[in-house]
């Protein structure tokens, strides 16, 4: 969160984000037409010191037989110099490969070179084909090159390509088509205000946009606006809360560990008191005793230090392997010299602090008395107040950490287990890349898709197949489209919903739950009937009582815009975890710009990308699978952040409770050691072992209860404080009642453990100090 990005003048690097408005109301977020990006690029010299265009995409490598899907970035040459690219071999893009140069060249990432090209040394003589274009490979980025993850954590470019070949086909490069994932990026001049530049750009680009769309009815009242967003803000977006919570959790754990080590050190000092007494008698001053304690701590610290470094390295590798798609900048995380020095300094500081705390607790006068005593009197070395305070602190910190962790854990588990209200078992969602067919006629595309669907049904592993434009669980590789319904043909009063074009099988294959109405029929599809199925949320949006069956609305994107569509069915809202269900509308149509397939495998059979590619090739070789993932997998990805939270919070709970158990046990065991003779007396006059255990438990309860009350106070205060901020913590019943119960059980268990050696043998042994 704090470390500057590894680029020159990183604080001046910005991305231009655009939104579309209709009559001042946000219409389309984070997208703008292709010509606007080009205009911005041409005009950028007026505002930026350096600038570039970038288009983030995914595409199928057609020069490989298994058509791997790779993350591509179409860039103008300045982009890679803005992010200080370094190369393993070859070179970066030059001006000859820049805007409008039409020179198809590619740079591959180090990992792509390793994985797709087996690290071949002659890779620079090779080409890589996307669509119908062969790109000459001119370079391989360095292993240590850190790409800014502007499209979210874990999204790393595998192939950089010349901007001119970006995936927007010519017919989608008009002023009326809004594209996502294309941006102007630039470095603002030193001392210039981003807000001022933002305003100037918006004024210029909006005037150009308004000029170009003038007279088009569907763009009436349309405008565009821009925001300059700092690279660091984009990279950290959505992750600040997670990082903050992780950091807070680690900090509390550190505090518990500190209290814990102090406890252990004090208990150790108590064990050593006789030795210390002898040293004191022989003339040792407090400083001598301090040195002695410090030496011992340092000796313990040395192997622990190396062990903890190994654990830290392991944890970093584990995080990078499993959570790089969830947390930003993990690829920059490693143990550096400065972090090593910091850890060493912290460890030394803690060693001195612990030695000081322990030696301050040593009462030299009492140590001398100890030597003169018969040995039966233990002479309290570490005050009861300190012991109680240590237990209280430990209990308070543990309760806070466990409570917060349990709140998050329960919320995460609830999200993971939440029924989504559609089938996920045996279903596969398939993204298609239609190559040159993207520019073919609507009827040709439709014919191809229907033929592919029929062909797929001949495969023995496929039970059912359906065509759609979207899935209930979308990924960042899927563009979702919103559209509008209106009661009037002029769309004065319009309502927005997520649009999914579907065939007659889609909703049944999904297992959508019907509230009212009917399914789409083959006739609906054949005639592209003016029928619409919507979900409950959209029904309520259209009419508060949701009773919109058989009502008619105009659909904004329809070719038959003048004819109203009839609501023929209402389905129950999907129930995606952690998300409020959005209004959805389903239209019977299979002429789809970005087609997708929903496949249902026969029980216990798996559908592979190769199977689907082979079948589609027999219809049209241009169709390739971009991505095939199971609906279960998609659901797992959807709850990946929850799964990570669940694992992290569970580990935090376990660590906190384990540390607390060790710490509390250390103090209790020391306390019992001090009270050993008293316990012996009690047992001699008839106290049963159970009585002794209950006595110890009761005596320990006071600091524990105080710790629990303090924790409750802190937690309530924290909740009240957080209510004033944008941070929110989930509140669950488990998170409130379980931590105190666990702490009480922990106290009972540690009480039993600490007193077990007393109550498990005859009283005589205790009185004799055995």
């Amino acid at each position, binding site marked *: 969160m704090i470390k500057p990005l590894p680029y020159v003048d990183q604080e001046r690097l910005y991305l231009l984000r655009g939104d579309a408005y209709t009559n001042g109301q946000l219409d389309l977020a984070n997208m703008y037409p292709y010509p606007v990006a080009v205009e911005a690029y041409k005009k950028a010299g007026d505002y930026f010191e350096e600038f570039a265009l970038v288009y983030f995409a995914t595409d199928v490598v057609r020069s490989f037989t298994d058509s791997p899907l790779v993350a591509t970035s179409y860039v103008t040459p300045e982009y890679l110099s803005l992010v200080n690219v370094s190369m393993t071999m070859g070179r970066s893009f030059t001006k000859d490969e820049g805007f409008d140069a039409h020179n198809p060249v590619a740079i591959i990432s180090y990992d792509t070179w390793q994985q797709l090209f087996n690290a071949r040394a002659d890779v620079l003589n090779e080409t890589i084909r996307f669509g119908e274009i062969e790109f000459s490979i001119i370079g391989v980025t360095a292993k240590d090159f850190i790409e800014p993850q502007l499209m979210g954590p874990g999204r790393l470019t595998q192939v950089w390509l010349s901007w001119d070949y970006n995936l927007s086909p010519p017919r989608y490069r008009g002023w009326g088509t809004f594209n996502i994932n294309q941006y102007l990026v630039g470095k603002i001049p030193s001392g210039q205000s981003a807000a001022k530049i933002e305003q100037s750009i918006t004024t210029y680009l909006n005037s150009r946009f308004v000029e170009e769309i003038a007279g088009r009815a569907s763009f009436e009242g349309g405008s565009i606006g821009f925001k300059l967003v700092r690279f660091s803000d984009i990279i950290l977006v959505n992750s600040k809360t997670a990082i903050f919570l992780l950091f807070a959790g680690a900090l509390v754990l550190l505090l518990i560990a500190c209290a814990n080590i102090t406890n252990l050190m004090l208990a150790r000092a108590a064990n050593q008191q006789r030795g210390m007494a002898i040293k004191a008698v022989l003339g040792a001053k407090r400083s001598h005793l301090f040195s002695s304690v410090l030496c011992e701590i340092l000796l313990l610290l040395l192997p622990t230090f190396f062990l903890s470094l190994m654990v830290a390295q392991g944890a970093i590798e584990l995080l990078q392997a499993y959570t790089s798609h969830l947390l930003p900048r993990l690829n920059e995380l490693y143990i550096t010299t400065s972090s090593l020095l910091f850890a060493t300094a912290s460890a030394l500081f803690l060693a001195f602090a612990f030695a000081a705390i322990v030696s301050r607790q040593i009462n030299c006068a009492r140590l001398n008395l100890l030597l003169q005593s*018969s040995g*039966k009197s233990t002479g309290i070395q570490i005050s009861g107040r300190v012991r109680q305070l240590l237990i209280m602190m430990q209990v308070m910190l543990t309760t806070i950490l466990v409570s917060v962790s349990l709140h998050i854990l329960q919320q995460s588990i609830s999200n993971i287990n939440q029924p989504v209200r559609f089938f996920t078992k045996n279903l596969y969602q398939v993204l298609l890349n239609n190559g040159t067919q993207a520019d073919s006629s609507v009827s040709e595309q439709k014919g191809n898709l229907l033929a592919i669907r029929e062909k797929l049904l001949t495969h023995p592993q496929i039970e059912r197949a359906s065509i759609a434009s979207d899935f209930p669980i979308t990924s960042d590789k899927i563009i979702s489209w919103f559209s509008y319904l209106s009661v009037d043909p002029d769309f004065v009063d319009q309502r927005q919903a997520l649009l999914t074009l579907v065939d007659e099988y889609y909703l049944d294959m999904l297992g959508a739950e019907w509230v009212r109405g009917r399914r789409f029929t083959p006739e609906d599809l054949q005639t592209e009937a003016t029928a619409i199925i919507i979900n409950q949320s959209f029904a309520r949006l259209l009419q508060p009582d949701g009773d919109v069956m058989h009502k008619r609305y105009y659909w904004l994107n329809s070719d038959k815009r003048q004819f109203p569509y009839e609501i023929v069915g209402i389905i129950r809202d999907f129930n995606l975890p952690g998300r409020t269900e959005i209004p959805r509308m389903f239209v019977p149509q299979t002429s789809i710009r970005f087609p997708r397939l929903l496949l249902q495998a026969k029980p216990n059979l798996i559908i592979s990308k190769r199977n689907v590619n082979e079948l589609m090739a027999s219809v049209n070789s241009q169709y390739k699978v971009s991505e095939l993932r199971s609906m279960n997998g998609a659901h797992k990805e959807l709850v990946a952040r929850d799964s990570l939270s669940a694992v992290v919070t569970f580990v935090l709970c376990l660590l906190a409770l384990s540390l607390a158990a060790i710490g509390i046990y250390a103090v209790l065991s020391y306390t019992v050691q001090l009270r050993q*003779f*008293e316990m012996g*007396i*009690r*047992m*001699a*006059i*008839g*106290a*049963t*072992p*159970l*009585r002794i255990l209950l006595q110890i438990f009761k005596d320990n309860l006071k600091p524990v209860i105080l710790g629990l009350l303090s924790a409750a106070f802190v937690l309530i205060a924290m909740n009240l404080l957080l209510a004033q901020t944008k941070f929110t913590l989930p509140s669950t019943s488990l998170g409130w009642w379980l931590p105190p119960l666990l702490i009480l059980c922990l106290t009972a268990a540690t009480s039993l453990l600490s007193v077990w050696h007393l*109550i*498990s*043998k*005859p*009283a*005589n*042994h205790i*009185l004799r100090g055995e």
Partner: protein
Amino acid sequence: MQNLTLQMKGITKVYATDEMYTHALRGIDLDIYKGDFVSICGPSGCGKSTLLSLLGLLDMPTSGQYFIEGKDVSRLTLSEAASIRNEKIGFIFQSFNLIDELSVFENIALPLRYRQQKVSEIEIKKRVTECLQIVDMAHRAQHKPNQLSGGQQQRIAIARALVGNPALLLVDEPTGNLDSRNGDAVMEMLQHLNAQGTTLCMVTHDPRYADMATRKLHLLDGQIIDAQHISEMVSEQI
């Protein structure tokens, strides 16, 4: 036989370590009757304290049988031993063994609070007050033990031993930590208790106090070498 308070038959106690076995007691046979005042004497390491521990169920014998008021107590769990100790036996230690954190009153009340059958607070107060009066310490009920002299602390220890109305009072070097004046006073009190019917068994090094008992046991190397009624010895001398 009705007056037999405790009986030991062939009691042995062996302390075992990894390296060696120590035979602390070897075949002890002992009968103590109601109203007896038995003193146990012998050199250091002869097994006096071990015998007292076994008598008080603070430890269990390695072999042999032990009966208290006719009940076999040779093989008890720690909880069962604690209950019998609580109801049948009172302890008086050399170092008083009062709990510093508790008041004199609470120290004395402790055995009653450990009773299996709950004793009411009124009853506890009545019996503690009686015992405090017996040892003439009623005016110190709310004091802490460390505010009292050694002699006073031992008197409190006697009161605590008496409060449960035990069948047997076990006394371990009661005067060891006291000066002669306080020691004499404590012994006088014990004699007085015995005269009132309390059964006493006392370990002591001091022959003067050992002679105050009605029976004297001599221990050597874990065996009783002589057990004779003092009264018989006295009559023989006459």
